[in-house]
């Protein structure tokens, strides 16, 4: 922390294998240090930090004041003892934290990595790796530093990495070395490598790298494409070598792990305000008493000087008053005791431990318990109003399972009666040795159908085993591993595998499957790749008999249009099945085939090839070509894939929404998927009045859609309020049908229009039709009168809002914010799809800004990090994949369903406990301190304390601390199962009813009342009273002991009243504190102590002499009753007349217990209840139809396959033409790019003409491989037939290297068997579409507005512009 920083680097120069050279620059080593202290610096640094806390400094100031004898109204130890206690507790905690940080630093720093030193690989600790070293990475290893990839065992210097730790994207990414270095291969060559890299200084941009490699008098441009960043994991690559460019703290990972934003709870903020008020109050009292002192000294004190002269420096009453002010500040400071902050921390720590210890939040599958990573937010968990949830990995498991299918009108996989025990899982092994043992299917009729050789069934599975882009790997015979682009494709291929159609291997031109145990090789003629608009993919294969057949799978809506008319009947049946599936929230695909004659194929092949070669509008031509052949198909059936929800998600969401928590799903997924999940997890239901879809592409259209939605809401709720409006439900159904949930894309197919797509629900009868959206957006129509927000708050009926990422970008603009919030917050559920990580954070910030509500963000991936960090509470799902989210989170657990427990049980309790604690705490300190104020009027305002100084010292830290701590930690108003049973119990927290300014004033008033009673009752009783031996009782010491005892007893009775849950610990603490008080008092007043320190223990004998007097006890009893009775009466009245829900629940509980009834409605019962209700609803539904088609993957893989680029050399052994292919593949990519620059993309896409730094003949692995730096797309060249590289460089770094182009090969490839298949711009739908990765998110957080503004201005909307923006800045 304190090491001297070298001046900021301008550029970084690194020479490989040359430590001496690199040492000149003093680059940071790879040793990371996250710890703050070492043994020597601990004390000073820690104390320095602690005294930066205002409270601590304040107490230090008091301490200094107390050292001035004229002011000191209390002994110094009354302040220093608590202060020292507080400081040491904090110090111990900090030391422990730092110790663990040291430990983890050491562990990471001592990891082994293989470093190439003097030509040989040696194991080195991570911390000893230096910039300029070449290190070897093996499969599944973490990258130790930011490396420049030099070579890899994979062909073309490719290597695969997983960047989940960095940006949360779980799909694998490809990195490629510069071609000259990829040839270096083995360590011996690498040892001689002495290239020098000149690059940018360390920064936190994950998606950008800019540098140049100088080697052998040549220059090679380097981009992010060549970099392996620390935190990534090497996958599917045997080994690779990399040159360390940035190490340790300079790595992008470390540069990104900036300071965590310190979160404070609203209670914290309230507490700070209140403490300030109390300070104000303190000063007021000080002033009042000082004025009193001035008056007194003038009127009485000056006359009394013969007995009590003024202290030497005091020469007039004003100065005396000034000193008296400070004296009173000291003795009244206990209204804000230092123990407040410590106690709050202790309570929160206790609550955190309870969260950590909760067995019901433990997931045995991942062996992870819930973890409270922040211990300062617990009570805020009881106040959450908005939950922002990620979808994949959070709500869903990201596991697709083949669940049902419909083959030739016959439905399989129906779940039998839910009341019966679940049927046995099918065992495929006897039938098929190649079956995947993990596959689950329950309906044996399908297996029977396969076994009897039903032709349709066979064809069905044949299609599934042929029509896909899955890669297979067969480690040993029969041990197949499928690498699927999207999990749903994997599920389909796996299903086919288990039903006897095993996809074994593929080459660019062939697919080999084992059909019912018989190996068959099909010739792959063409892959008509998937894209977003087509929503289908096809393959054309020639079977061994020579018959050519087209197999197609895709969204039912689109496929049904292309069926042969004779399929009408089957289509109807299948359609019914699809509706059922969709109603169950399953993702469906329709399957069809078409037989092609040789002539048809030839003809089409030719037209396809031409389309592929076309220089302009290639995209459209290809689409047209595909369209042409995908006609007159025969329907085979449909599949239904379950996007497996995490366990208990619908129940959790149901309970949470019953608790008035609004749940927003923010997902990067497609609209269809998101909406489907919305239905399956019961966020959206068919009971909902209306679901609005906002998918406009311009500011105006989004605004209009939002307005229209709002108008509808008001209309509907008016209609509801004044008698049911008839047509609503029916109309709403029509809305679903007509537009589906693909409206956005469907409309965008129009292409050039600039994406003016809006939701075009036919208006309900009676409303004027909305103005049709004109293609050039007209100047904004005069704003309709804003619906007043009060109106919006009273919306009846349930609405939901679905908004697309690109619309969201507009909705988040400054002038739209309010409108969006108004609309969205009136909805019960909001789904934002296709949102970038940045947008997730912006949405959260928006709600924070406009709603003053507590927000909670839950997610599992690094793309949720920004959202998790900006929400009040961030929850990370642990145990699934990357831990970046967990690291950024405040709480982590492994199942979404634990959220209900976290909020409704732990959060609620925490809030309740904290509120009760604070109320009581302020009460007891006011009761304690204000007595001095009253006494001031009787002691000449001299700042004489009422109590013994030891009592003042110990009151807060010993006599009254533990009972209230016990209450703050253990109190429960209702048992945990009740808070889940009655989610409404959560409401007081959201409304902040238990501790607010009003409650605070009530506590204060009660405290002041108590102090009045505690002072004046003894005053009245004792002033004339005498002991039974005749000595007066009105001496100071007796009075002090009486008042103190009364105080301790009153506050103990009060805590007894406040405690609702008396565990053994509470008993021990309450009785123990009382016992402690008496014990310590007797000890302090004992003769022994007095004889040793006569000047310290003045009160010798007071305790026994006082407490033996019956009058004293009568006084104490009287004071206690006077203090408690009004409270008791008030509470009873409140409970009796206006019981809170929790009181009622508690009461019912009591009654039940009394009746000795077994607890009827257990937790299980409730869960079951919710479940059965939802089952019932499922059955009732079905009228609404959603197309839940299942293509989660990006396009472009067809191309990769047919080019053979992504196949291992082994599998390419047969395909000798592979090498020749590469350039043709590049060609297509280029063409594609080219097409993009000219065709405005429909939905959204990466079409930025970005200059990039591709050097040599490196095939650019851009969009489809979804790289980190997705914005660095390949520049596009007009001439598609020219060898790609030299001319294509729009490269600021001139490439001197001449690539070995194979122009003839590229020609040959074109005439080759495989036609380059369509590669469309992967719209906004591919993850690459929003490769706005973490670094950019952070970067863009600042520049967002500007970008958004430009976005709205530019014709290509949405994220692409952002991408363009970034690339242009290069």
């Amino acid at each position: 922390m304190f090491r001297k920083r070298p001046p900021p680097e301008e550029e970084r120069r690194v020479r490989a294998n040359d430590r001496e050279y690199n040492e000149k620059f003093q680059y940071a080593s790879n040793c990371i240090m996250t710890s703050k202290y070492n043994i020597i610096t601990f004390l000073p640094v820690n104390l320095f930090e602690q005294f930066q806390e205002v409270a601590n400094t304040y107490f230090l100031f008091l301490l200094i004041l107390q050292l001035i004898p004229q002011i000191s109204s209390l002994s110094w130890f009354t302040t220093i003892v608590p202060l020292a206690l507080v400081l040491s507790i904090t110090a111990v905690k900090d030391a422990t934290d730092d110790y663990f940080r040291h430990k983890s630093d050491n562990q990471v720093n001592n990891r082994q990595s293989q470093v190439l030193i003097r030509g040989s690989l040696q194991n080195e600790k991570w911390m000893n790796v230096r910039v300029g070293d070449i290190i070897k990475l093996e499969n599944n290893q973490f990258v130790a530093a930011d490396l420049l990839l030099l070579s890899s065992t994979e062909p073309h210097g490719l290597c695969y990495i997983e960047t989940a730790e960095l940006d949360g994207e779980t799909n694998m990414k490809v990195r490629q070395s510069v071609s000259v270095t990829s040839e270096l291969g083995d360590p011996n060559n690498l040892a001689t490598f002495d290239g020098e890299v000149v690059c940018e200084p360390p920064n936190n941009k994950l998606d950008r790298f800019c540098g140049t490699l100088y080697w052998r008098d040549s220059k090679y441009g380097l981009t992010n494409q060549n970099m392996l960043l620390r935190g990534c994991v090497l996958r599917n690559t045997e080994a690779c070598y990399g040159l360390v460019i940035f190490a340790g703290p300079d790595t992008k990972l470390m540069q990104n792990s900036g300071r965590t934003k310190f979160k404070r709870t609203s209670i914290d903020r309230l507490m700070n305000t209140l403490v300030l008020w109390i300070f104000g109050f303190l000063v007021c009292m000080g002033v009042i008493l000082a004025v009193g002192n001035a008056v007194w000294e003038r009127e009485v004190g000056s006359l009394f000087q013969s007995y009590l002269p003024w202290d030497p420096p005091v020469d007039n009453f004003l100065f005396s008053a000034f000193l008296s002010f400070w004296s009173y500040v000291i003795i009244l400071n206990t209204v804000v005791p230092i123990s407040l902050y410590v106690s709050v921390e202790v309570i929160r720590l206790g609550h955190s431990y309870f969260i950590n210890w909760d067995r019901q939040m433990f997931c045995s599958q991942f062996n992870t318990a819930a973890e409270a990573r922040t211990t300062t937010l617990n009570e805020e968990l009881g106040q959450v109003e908005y939950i922002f949830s990620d979808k994949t990995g959070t709500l869903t498991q990201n596991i697709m399972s083949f669940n049902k299918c419909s083959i030739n009108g016959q439905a399989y996989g129906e779940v039998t009666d839910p009341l019966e025990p679940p049927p046995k899982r099918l065992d495929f092994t006897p039938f098929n040795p190649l079956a995947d043992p993990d596959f689950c299917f329950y309906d044996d009729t399908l297996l029977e159908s396969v076994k009897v050789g039903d032709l349709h069934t066979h064809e069905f599975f044949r299609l599934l085993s042929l029509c896909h882009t899955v890669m297979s790997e067969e480690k040993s015979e029969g041990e197949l591993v499928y690498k699927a682009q999207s999990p749903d494709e994997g599920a389909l291929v796996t299903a086919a595998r288990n039903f006897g159609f095993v996809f074994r291997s593929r080459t660019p031109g062939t697919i080999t499957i084992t059909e019912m145990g018989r190996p068959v090789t099909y010739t792959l003629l063409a892959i008509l790749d998937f894209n977003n608009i087509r929503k289908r993919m096809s393959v054309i294969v020639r079977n061994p008999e020579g018959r050519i057949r087209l197999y197609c799978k895709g969204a039912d809506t689109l496929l049904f249009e292309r069926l042969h008319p004779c399929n009408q009947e089957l289509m109807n049946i299948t359609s019914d099945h699809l509706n059922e599936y969709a109603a169950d929230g399953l993702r469906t695909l329709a399957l069809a085939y078409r037989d092609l004659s040789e002539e048809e194929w030839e003809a089409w092949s030719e037209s396809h090839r031409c389309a592929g070669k076309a220089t302009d509008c290639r995209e459209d031509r290809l689409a047209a070509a595909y369209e042409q052949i995908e006609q007159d198909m025969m329907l085979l059936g449909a599949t239904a894939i379950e996007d497996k929800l995490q366990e208990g998600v619908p129940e959790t969401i149901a309970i949470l929404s019953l608790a008035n928590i609004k749940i927003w799903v923010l997902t990067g997924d497609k609209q269809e998927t998101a909406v489907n999940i919305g239905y399956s997890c019961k966020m959206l239901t068919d009971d909902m009045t209306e679901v609005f879809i906002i998918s406009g592409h311009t500011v105006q259209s989004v605004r209009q859609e939002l307005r229209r939605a709002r108008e509808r809401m008001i209309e509907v709720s008016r209609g509801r309020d004044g008698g049911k409006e008839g047509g609503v439900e029916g109309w709403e159904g029509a809305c679903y049908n007509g537009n589906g949930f693909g409206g956005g894309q469907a409309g965008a197919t129009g292409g050039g229009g600039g994406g003016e797509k809006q939701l075009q629900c036919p208006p309900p009868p009676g409303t004027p039709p909305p103005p049709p959206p004109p293609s050039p957006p007209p100047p904004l129509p005069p704003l309709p009168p804003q619906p007043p927000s009060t109106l919006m708050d009273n919306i009846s009926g349930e609405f939901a809002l679905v908004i697309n990422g690109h619309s969201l970008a507009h909705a988040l603009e400054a002038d739209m914010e309010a409108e969006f919030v108004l609309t969205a917050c009136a909805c019960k559920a909001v789904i934002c799809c296709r949102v970038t990580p940045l947008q997730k954070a912006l949405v959260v910030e928006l709600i924070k800004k406009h709603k003053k509500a507590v927000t909670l963000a839950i997610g599992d991936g690094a793309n949720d990090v920004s959202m998790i960090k900006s929400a009040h509470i961030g929850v990370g799902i642990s145990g699934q994949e990357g831990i970046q989210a967990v690291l950024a989170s405040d709480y982590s657990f492994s199942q979404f369903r634990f959220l209900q427990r976290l909020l409704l049980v732990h959060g609620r309790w925490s809030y309740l406990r904290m509120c009760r604690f604070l109320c009581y705490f302020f009460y007891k300190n006011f009761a304690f301190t204000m007595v001095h104020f009253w006494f001031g009027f009787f002691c000449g305002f001299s700042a004489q304390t009422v109590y013994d100084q030891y009592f003042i010292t110990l009151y807060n830290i010993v006599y009254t601390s533990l009972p209230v701590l016990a209450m703050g930690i253990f109190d429960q108003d209702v048992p945990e199962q009740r808070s889940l049973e009655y989610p409404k119990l959560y409401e007081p927290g959201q409304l902040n009813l238990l501790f607010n300014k009003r409650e605070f004033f009530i506590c204060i008033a009660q405290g002041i009342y108590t102090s009045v009673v505690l002072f004046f009752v003894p005053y009245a009783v004792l002033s004339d009273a005498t002991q039974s031996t005749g000595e007066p009782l009105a001496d100071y010491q007796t009075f002090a002991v009486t008042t103190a005892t009364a105080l301790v007893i009153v506050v103990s009775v009060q805590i007894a009243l406040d405690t609702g849950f008396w565990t053994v610990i509470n008993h021990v603490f309450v009785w123990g504190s009382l016992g402690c008080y008496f014990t310590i008092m007797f000890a302090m007043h004992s003769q022994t102590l007095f004889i040793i320190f006569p000047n310290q223990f003045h009160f010798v004998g007071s305790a026994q002499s006082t407490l033996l007097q019956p009058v004293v006890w009568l006084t104490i009893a009287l004071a206690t009753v006077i203090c408690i009775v009004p409270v008791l009466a008030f509470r009873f009245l409140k409970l009796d007349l206006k019981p809170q829900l929790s009181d009622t629940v508690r009461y019912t509980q009591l009654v039940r217990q009394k009746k000795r009834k077994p607890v009827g409605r257990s937790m299980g019962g409730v869960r079951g209840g919710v479940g059965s209700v939802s089952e019932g609803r499922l059955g009732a539904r079905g009228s609404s139809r959603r197309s839940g088609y299942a293509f989660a993957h990006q396009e472009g893989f067809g191309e990769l396959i047919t080019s053979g680029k992504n196949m291992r050399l082994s599998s390419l052994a047969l395909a000798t033409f592979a090498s020749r292919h590469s350039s043709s593949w590049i060609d297509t990519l280029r063409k594609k790019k080219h097409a993009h620059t000219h065709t405005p993309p429909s939905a959204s896409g990466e079409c930025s003409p970005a200059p990039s730094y591709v050097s040599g003949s490196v095939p650019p692995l851009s969009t489809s491989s979804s790289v980190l730096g997705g914005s660095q797309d390949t520049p596009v060249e007009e001439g598609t037939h020219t060898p790609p590289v030299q001319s294509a460089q729009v490269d600021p770094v001139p490439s001197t290297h001449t690539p070995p182009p194979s122009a003839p090969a590229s020609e040959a490839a074109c005439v080759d068997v495989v036609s380059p298949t369509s590669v469309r711009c992967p719209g906004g739908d591919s993850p690459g579409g929003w490769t706005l990765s973490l670094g950019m998110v952070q970067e863009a957080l600042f520049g967002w507005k500007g970008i958004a503004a430009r976005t709205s201005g530019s014709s290509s909307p949405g994220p692409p512009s952002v991408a363009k923006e970034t690339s242009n800045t290069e």
Partner: protein
Amino acid sequence: IAAMMASSYNAKEEDGHHSSGSSHGGAGAVKSKKPDNTAFKQQRLPAWQPILTAGTVLPAFFVIGLIFIPIGIGLYVTSNNIKEFEIDYTGAEVSSPCFNCAKNFSWNSTTSCNCSVPFTLEQPFESNVFMYYGLSNFYQNHRRYVKSRDDSQLNGDRSSLKNPSKECEPYRTSDGLPIAPCGAIANSLFNDTLELYYIHSNGSSTAIPLVKKGIAWWTDKHVKFRNPGGSNNNLTAAFQGTTKPVNWRKPVYELDPSDSDNNGFINEDFIVWMRTAALPTFRKLYRIIQKKPNMTPTLPSGKYLLEVTYNYPVHSFDGRKRMILSTISWMGGKNPFLGIAYITVGSVCFFLGVVLLIIHHKYDNRNNSADIPN
């Protein structure tokens, strides 16, 4: 500030993913992190959950009322049976016998002033009678006053005797010699002498014997206050090298030369004075009039004369001086407030109980809300 920069990056957790991934296979080998199933950790500790119901609160009110009212009546009756007589002898009014003394007297006066205050007891005082002097407007509870003493010195510590605590300033030293006893409290020792005479009907007067021992707390007399030099009888020698407080006429070792057990720091009048009062109006025990062995009252009704040796000026700060005679019961002296307060509080509780009972019966919501809104 730099030191405050906490990095969110926790290096160890960088590979948390990895280790959890590997734990899948060897699940048996991995220690389960499942939290212990203890009642404490699962927050299932058995607990008593009291709840304020009509069944508990209303009886409580009645019980408090029923306990407090009799106690209050008892206290009131007891207090009424106690006889107390109080007479102000400050001499602030012209008519007062001590007016002249009060007017002329100051600390500097060398001769004492005497005055006699006649009074009549209407009722006889039985049993032991306690004689108090009372001061008003005297701030013995002032912070600077309270701390202006040296308990160590008063406890007989020799070094403190010669070197009193700084708290005693400005009454720490006088003419270079340490003051014993030091401090403002000791300096302002009440030094009026009060004597009581019974005036017989025939006009003759009898001095009433006043006992001056047994008026201080036992712990004060035997623990807190000790003469320097222990039980050494030669107090004069023990206090050698010290001087008397400025207001005093005679040194501390001459407070009661007749009784070595009541002289010096352990003089009971001195001890009583040193036990500072909590309030500016206070009384201090002065003498005890022992009950007579026969059945005659200690102080029969009739005329009495209070002979005051007026030494203590209170005129400057508008103070008042009183002499109080009082008998005592088990609960101490006369204290009507306590009894009245008990009766009042008890009645209020009882009344509250009744009111709450009525409200409870009229507006009880709880039975209706047996089905909880969800």
